């Protein structure tokens, strides 16, 4: 039996890596003594696979993993879900789970885009400059920026991967960022940048907010990056990977295309 789990990664823990998160989950599964399926061979590992890697330092409300249980193990998902978060570190919480059929495409194959919210900041911001830059970015036929792939810098056109991009404003830091351990509290708003929200393609290669910010110019830098959703899309429709869950239909920030 395979189960797909959605989880969040918020606060200080976001400074851990994708590999660190994998180890947190392995320890949590062992703590709960869940009957996992193990790989064969000299060094058996539990069969857990994670979706798109989240860059170290970025937060997320929508991370996913698929876990396979040992043959014959019967898992009650309603009973399992509330037990997961207490076995996980503070800042990592399981927010949804669903059984998946054998042969379901992996997260890596299935997820086509992510919705992100983040701030782009400039050292010398003049009023309206950000919005102008965003508008010209969306009009550009191509946006060639340097990206790091396997440790090497390559030039790549990121424009096709920017499915939507909109300016949220520059005043307030959304209140849910000010929870314990989250970004700088006491900051009344962005004084040096603006909030953006973007749908970025995960296929054929995963585009990240970092790439968008780089396309805004060499002086721009990113801050407060958070993944809001991951989506599986087909034929114009899209749904989130734990869509079978009742609360998944009203997943946060399910915007349509803004550009």
């Amino acid at each position, binding site marked *: 039996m395979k189960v797909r789990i959605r989880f969040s990664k918020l606060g*200080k*823990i976001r*400074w*851990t*890596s994708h*590999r*660190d998160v994998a*180890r*947190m989950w*392995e*320890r*949590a*599964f*062992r*703590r709960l*003594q869940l009957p996992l399926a*193990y790989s064969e061979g*000299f*060094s*058996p590992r539990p069969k857990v696979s994670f979706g798109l890697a989240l860059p*170290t*330092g970025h937060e997320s409300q929508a991370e996913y993993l698929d876990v396979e249980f040992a043959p014959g193990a019967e898992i009650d998902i309603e009973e399992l879900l509330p037990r997961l978060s207490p*076995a996980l*570190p*503070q*800042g990592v919480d399981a927010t949804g789970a669903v059984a998946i059929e054998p042969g379901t495409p992996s997260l890596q194959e299935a997820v086509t885009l992510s919705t992100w919210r983040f701030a782009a900041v400039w050292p010398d911001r003049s009023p309206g400059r950000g919005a102008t830059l965003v508008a010209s970015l969306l009009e550009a036929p191509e946006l060639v920026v340097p990206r790091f792939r396997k440790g090497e810098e390559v030039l790549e056109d990121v424009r096709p991967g920017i499915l939507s991009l909109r300016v949220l404003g520059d005043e307030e830091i959304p209140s849910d960022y000010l929870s314990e351990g989250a*970004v*700088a*509290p*006491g900051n009344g708003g962005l004084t040096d940048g603006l909030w953006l929200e973007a749908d970025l393609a995960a296929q054929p290669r995963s585009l990240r907010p970092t790439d968008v910010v780089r396309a805004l110019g060499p002086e721009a830098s990113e*801050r407060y990056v958070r993944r809001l959703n991951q989506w599986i899309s087909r034929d114009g429709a899209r749904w989130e990977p734990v869509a079978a869950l009742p609360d998944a239909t009203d997943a946060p920030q399910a915007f349509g295309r803004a550009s």
Partner: protein
Amino acid sequence: METLWPQLEPLLARVQKPARYIGCEDGALSPNPGPRDVRWLLLYPDTYEIGLPNQGLQILYELINERPDAIAERSYAPWVDMEAELRRARLPLFSLESHSPAAAFDVLAFNLSAELVFTNLLNCVDLAGVPVRAEQRRPEHPLVIAGGHCTYNPEPLADFVDAFVIGDGEEVVAEITEVLHEWKASGRSEGSRAAVLRRLASVPGVYVPSMYEVTYDGPRLVAVTPRYPDVPAVVEKRTITDLGAWPYPKHQLVPMTEVVHDRLNVEIFRGCTRGCRFCQAGMITRPVRERPAAQVRQMVSDGLARTGYDEVTLTSLSSADYSGIDQVVDGIINDPACGGQVSVSLPSLRVDAFTVGIASQIQKVRRTGLTFAPEAGTWRMRQVINKLITEEDLYGAVDSAYSQGWRRIKLYFLTGLPTETDADTMGIAELARNCVAIGRRHNKSASATVSLGGFVPKPQTPFQWFGQETVAGLARRIGMLRDATRRDKGIQLRWHDPKATLAEGIASRGDRRIGAVIEDVWRAGGTFQEWTEHFDLTRWSDAMARHGLSIDWYVHRERDRDELMPWAHISAGLHADFLWQEWEDARSMHVTPDCRWTPCYDCGACTEYGLEHVVASTVPPAGGSQGTGQDLSRGGAGGGGPVPVLLRTGPR
């Protein structure tokens, strides 16, 4: 306490491995101190990955936080990139729990396990915004305390550390907290710093360097004299008599990012009586105090369930010597609660077939490498250092390892040992070659990795009088072995940089005058000296020259019996006569048996303090000589019957 997190967080995007600086470990506490509570900041002056697993620091962390009148947080040396960011942003060193400034604590308590981190201690104190020299600190500054094995010669750090703690910390940490509590309650007024240090100096096991006058005659140390009548002339180490009374850490910290020894660690005994003459840990931690087997099993099963780890290390200086180790290991791997997925590892494997048998039981998977430490290449040399492994022991162990599926073994050796001849050095190549030949009988790709360390004589050991081998001498020996093994495809030779061995020698047996050298090395940017990319011997040799100190005199000179050692006023209980006799015996190749299986030869560690070994079995373990060079089937060197050791008793 005031948190620096909002200012620190923007820096994290610019440094390697930011998870080093967030805390968030499982088992970490979030203490909320009252205004009267004593605030300890426990520091490990090396990277987070190396410092986090340190068990001594974790034990004290729990003991202090269990008290109603004190709290403890932790900090580690920031890596060079983070240090640069902190200095640029004018931010201080911070704690990992609340991200409070280090100087907001009452005491900065360092764990010193290696001499090459001394400059990191200075750097951490400086990053905390506290003057590095103890004499320049004011009442508002925290006290700087240090414990750990390096404090058995505290003198090189005497200018920088307000108080040293010698020996086991479990009990004395409470006594220190009480003294600090009064200091804090008194308002830390002008002049109170000297008073609190004077009070600490009379706590047994605490050494306050500023309470002692040091006199020299030319280069020679003449006397170390207490300045006041209530200050002890000799500071005796602290020893906990019953490890079973201290089942700590109860909640081992589980880091969120990769560290060394990233698994459950359970200490199964403290102390070692094998009597290897080069080994400082074995000399200063006597006697042997075993943890009761039932408690070991309980700590393992509770620890695994709580942490979610699937691997446990049973730690000690020689874990295969634990009474009934095979049954304990068997109990763990067959514990149904552990689901059959738990692996056990034993550090410091003894060299014999019995031990390999245990190793094969616990490493059912991943048979990549097995490590043995014969330490020297010939039986003659091993008699000198009292590491009594016979060739039969070694070859039996090696044969057993290769025959049970290991393809590679690792062999640890020291070079530059007292009386070492070229034949002794070349014996290393021959031993390694024979091991590979044995391995080839079982597996065509059998190989051996030979790891060579340059020997550094350590204080409080029989070799404290020895003149350390020079850089050129060590390089020559390494070169001989490299040439000798060049054509042996099965042997890979690795060695430590002899220049780092020299720097370690300067710091290990130095007196107070070496403090100025350590400060110069630090000021020249010499932090993380055990990291090859940050080490440069010229910083050390330049500083020695600048202060008119001779490397030859401090490092390479053989001392005579009458010389006053800089650490003579610090005692691990060992009689000076015993250490000298061992030094003479070494040079005449007389061996000293393991006192656990043979009658007491009165080294002083037990008799001085009214202690006994605390062990669970009077019967020597089965199988070969157990690396003792003795026939243990006859009850060791004493011959016949059970060995006279005491069963789990307290002080007499």
